[in-house]
């Protein structure tokens, strides 16, 4: 009993330490960061955060990220719900192969796709738009969402559909009034994972944007490349990029356990 608690505390300490160090750095002046190794800020300052909130350069990055992540979640859910319904309810020629092909895209390394993505989206005039990044992220998010939703839908007995049709429900009415409420939790789980993987991705987002749609992750990355960077601001921006994720995790912690229990991540 005792031993396992010690192990857990050690692990959680390991989990928190790098994050604590980032927080610690974000409240220090650059002078303190570079000249002393203090375990907490002696010269406490929020200047780094003020600088971020007052600069349109950083603010735009945040807004761009939120824009393409929301678009991605929207596209993925709208496309995945009917597809998952088809896979869970009907047998049709090639369904197994198609399902498997969709899943292999979850394995596709984005690095392998950057050149064709760039070429394709430049040709159709979508380069440097939010929609381009949202579509590119569908590469791994759409198969995942179909997989998750198919699992949820297969858990709902077919008799429910049949009874509804016998009762004279039209398909759209059945879908919105009966089926949708039943799978709302599955949709929340799928949306959560789409949010997650779109929010954290860098490579495709960086390849497909230049100025207008540049996400916060790229802003951070590019700033780091330039020499003599302002570490305090960088740390503060890093801390801020953790906030949306932390909030989401906090609000859906119970759902998260459920989504993992479906065994489909």
């Amino acid at each position: 009993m005792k031993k396992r608690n010690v192990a857990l505390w050690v692990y959680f300490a390991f989990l928190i330490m790098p994050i604590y160090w980032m927080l610690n750095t974000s409240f220090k002046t650059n002078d303190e960061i570079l000249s002393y190794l203090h375990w907490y800020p002696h010269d406490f300052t929020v200047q780094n955060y003020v600088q971020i909130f007052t600069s349109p350069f950083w603010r735009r990055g945040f807004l761009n990220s939120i824009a393409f992540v929301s678009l991605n979640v929207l596209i993925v859910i709208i496309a995945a719900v009917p597809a998952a319904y088809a896979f869970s309810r009907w047998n049709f020629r090639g369904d197994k192969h198609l399902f498997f092909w969709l899943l292999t895209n979850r394995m596709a390394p984005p690095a392998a796709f950057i050149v064709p993505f760039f070429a394709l989206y430049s040709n159709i005039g979508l380069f440097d738009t939010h929609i381009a990044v949202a579509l590119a992220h569908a590469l791994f998010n759409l198969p995942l969402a179909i997989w998750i939703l198919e699992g949820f839908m297969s858990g709902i007995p077919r008799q429910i559909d049949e009874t509804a049709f016998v009762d004279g429900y039209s398909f759209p009415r059945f879908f919105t009034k009966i089926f949708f409420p039943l799978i709302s939790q599955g949709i929340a789980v799928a949306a959560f994972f789409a949010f997650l993987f779109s929010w954290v991705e860098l490579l495709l987002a960086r390849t497909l944007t230049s100025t207008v749609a540049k996400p916060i992750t790229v802003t951070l990355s590019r700033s780091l490349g330039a020499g003599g960077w302002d570490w305090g601001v960088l740390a503060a921006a890093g801390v801020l990029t953790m906030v949306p994720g932390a909030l989401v995790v906090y609000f859906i912690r119970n759902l998260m356990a459920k989504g993992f229990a479906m065994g489909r991540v």
Partner: protein
Amino acid sequence: MKNRAWWFLLPSLAVMSLSAFIPLMTVINYAQYSVFPGSAPQYIGMENFASVLQDPVFIGSLRRQVLFSFEVLLIEIPLGLGLALALPKKGKWVGWSLVLLGIPLLIPWNVVGIIWRVFTRSDLGAVPAMFNWFGYAGYNASLNSADAWWTVVAMDVWHWTPLVVLLCYAGLQAIPEEFYRAAKIDGASAWSTFIYVTLPKLRHALILAVLLRFMDSFKIYAEPFQLTGGGPGNSTTFLSIYTSRKAIGGFNMGFGAAVSIIYFFLVILISWLLYTAMLNVGGGNSK
């Protein structure tokens, strides 16, 4: 009636054609040409593939990538399973533990790299100071390749073990209490209960954890890119870093495309091998 399914699939297929099918076909097409910006592409058949396989930097990154993926699997799977077993099953700490575990998973991947860079840099990080304190003064992740390697491994363990914990934890919650009671009545030791009750029931969750961790560690890009930039030298240049260098470098795009195809093929092949291997191991005592 049967055709209705295709109407339902239409939106997904439309999206996937833009995000997967057309790009893949483009890569396959490029790979057979010598494509230099500003000049007409020249058909060269399989030559690109041959030169990829002969490129020592490619072979080096591939070897490093395989080693890295297996190292993190060997650390993260047992560690994640152990922690899932150690987590409380109910009570007020469950929610907080899950929140804490979820946080690293939701940090943008390059920010994970930045966090670890700030944490381990020799001029402003805590790690060199701690090593110094324990008597290892030479720690420097940007100069010493062994330090860089193990820092990237530690970062990946930090970043992804929570996923394994969550998967195993959910799997554990799904095992009915009766199984444990029955094992207790039969006088099974804690160890044999673990081997004969817990482990077989967790097989599905473990297969998933291994496959996901393999696929994603094999694709790792942003974290080492930000932490070490693939260096010092090429000591932390993984396949994705190599591939994107070749793809964007203003260099023969056909070569980059050939790298991409070999890379994609390898992920699918090794995932499939792992999957079949895991299905066969202990396949007898499942369900």
